[in-house]
């Protein structure tokens, strides 16, 4: 497992060296979201008997976790592919399982660091409860794993930066933005409520929020089951690509 350990270390060092961009910047983005939405909606909206800001903060944290986990593995792979430095991890005796675990592990770590950062900078804005911390941890890890894995698929599939950007802008961003970060899906029309139930990110956000307030749109057990199945499916898909050497070994 030494290949895994070094690859994980390399991936963490990679984002840490540009931490201003990879950790601090998304914290600032989340803070801006919070300030703007709180300013506009705080006195007008209450969701599930919670002040709007309190409702929003867990969603923002989870969105940061997800987006940064995706960004980490996808950008690392596409950069390495475009510059050719991917060869340095393809030549050594690293198994595809180690490869997968290292990239997803680093993505989860970056997601967790940004998530903790967002929690820290938003803490003064809303009274958060920590009703069921294990749920918070579970959904953060599963969400980071799913997005780290999806990021690997995107990074492996894309040949150019604009293809990766399309994956990010037309798939990941809508899935996260329309997952109930900013609103409860009960406020939607029945059609969009049903549509939201098809979005796996909805379950991640909803389950994560349950960990803070003990209330959610669907049962956290359902969310956990759906998220776990999705993680297994995405993970299996990524491992299959790696095993076959898709767009990595010709």
């Amino acid at each position, binding site marked *: 497992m030494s290949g895994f350990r070094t690859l994980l270390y390399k991936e963490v060092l990679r984002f840490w060296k540009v931490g201003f961009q990879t950790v601090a910047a998304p914290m600032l983005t989340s803070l801006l979201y919070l300030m703007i939405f709180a300013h506009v909606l705080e006195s007008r909206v209450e969701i599930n008997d919670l002040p709007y800001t309190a409702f929003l903060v867990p969603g923002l944290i989870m969105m940061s976790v997800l987006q940064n986990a995706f960004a980490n593995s996808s950008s690392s792979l596409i950069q390495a592919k475009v510059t050719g430095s991917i060869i340095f991890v*393809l*030549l050594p005796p690293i198994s595809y399982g180690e490869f997968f675990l290292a990239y997803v592990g680093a993505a989860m770590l970056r997601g967790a660091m940004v998530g903790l950062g967002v929690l820290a900078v938003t803490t003064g804005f809303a009274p958060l409860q920590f009703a069921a911390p294990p749920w918070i941890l579970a959904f953060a890890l599963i969400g980071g794993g799913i997005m780290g894995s999806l990021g690997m698929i995107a990074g492996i599939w894309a040949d150019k930066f604009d293809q990766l950007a399309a994956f990010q802008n037309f798939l990941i961003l809508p899935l996260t933005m329309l997952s109930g970060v900013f609103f409860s899906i009960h406020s939607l029309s029945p059609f969009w409520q049903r549509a939201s139930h098809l979005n796996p990110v909805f379950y991640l956000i909803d389950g994560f929020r349950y960990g803070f307030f003990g209330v959610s749109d669907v049962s956290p057990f359902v969310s956990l089951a759906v998220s776990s199945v999705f993680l297994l499916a995405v993970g299996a898909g990524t491992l299959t690509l790696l095993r076959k050497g898709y767009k990595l070994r010709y």
Partner: protein
Amino acid sequence: MSIAVSVRQITKRFGNVQALDGICLEIGEGEFFGLLGPNGAGKTTLISCLAGLVRSDSGEIRVMGFDVQGNYRQARRQLGVVPQELVFDPFFTVRETLRIQSGYFGLRRNDDWIDEILENLGLAPKAETNMRRLSGGMKRRVLVAQALVHKPPVIVLDEPTAGVDVELRQGLWQFIQRLNDEGHTVILTTHYLEEAEALCGRIAMLKQGRVVALDSTRDLLERFSAYQLGLRVDAADRLPEAVMRRVLPGEGYLNFQLGGLDEVEPLLAAIRESGCPIKDMRLTTTDLEDVFVEIMRGQDIEKAVRTR
């Protein structure tokens, strides 16, 4: 001599292009082996198959006895590859790059050897410099260093001196030669044929995905050996018809192709007898470039192919 690398009936097709077409080779342990051929001949594809970067359509490659696909972990431990492209990871310093590369091979405390490589490749003063800030030649040295961190028994160098200044080229070859002397098998592709001639004990020439020549460098040179005698004479019009018929086309010197040195004296005697004074004379021998050109023209493929 035991076999370091065996390549059996390797084929690889990319779309309509048959990049490798039944390559067979055996490279012995401790050899300094040259892989030559024009662009597109399949050299880099073959090396990529060896390194596991490209999966062959059929055939088998073994490195130190390990199948590069079936037993890839062991096979890759035996190999150090210096890629042709000048690639680097811009996030790290030279030392970080080498430590990380060591870690991939399971070597966690490798600083003594890393320091030795840095010293030998003239990289020691740049050890803490970020890769982005290195010149092209320095980046090339780091690529060589990365290939050597795990002391692989087989070292593959794909055009390692392309775009490298003379001083580095010489230093690099001294170091690689030393590793070869210590028992490492070295496989080299290069466009500098004089390098191959000076360094490689045996050479395979590839053309359109096939091996068109495979022999020791000395035998290749001998097989195509020929001398060219160039003369400058006064009053060339006095030369006898028999001599003039042998003059090769060209300007300046009158050039004669000779099969061996024993043909020199009869030719000179014939010229002297005609009363034609010789003003200048030069004798050149075949070099690897001539052999290469000859083989790539395809005029002598049947003669050149010799499987061992």
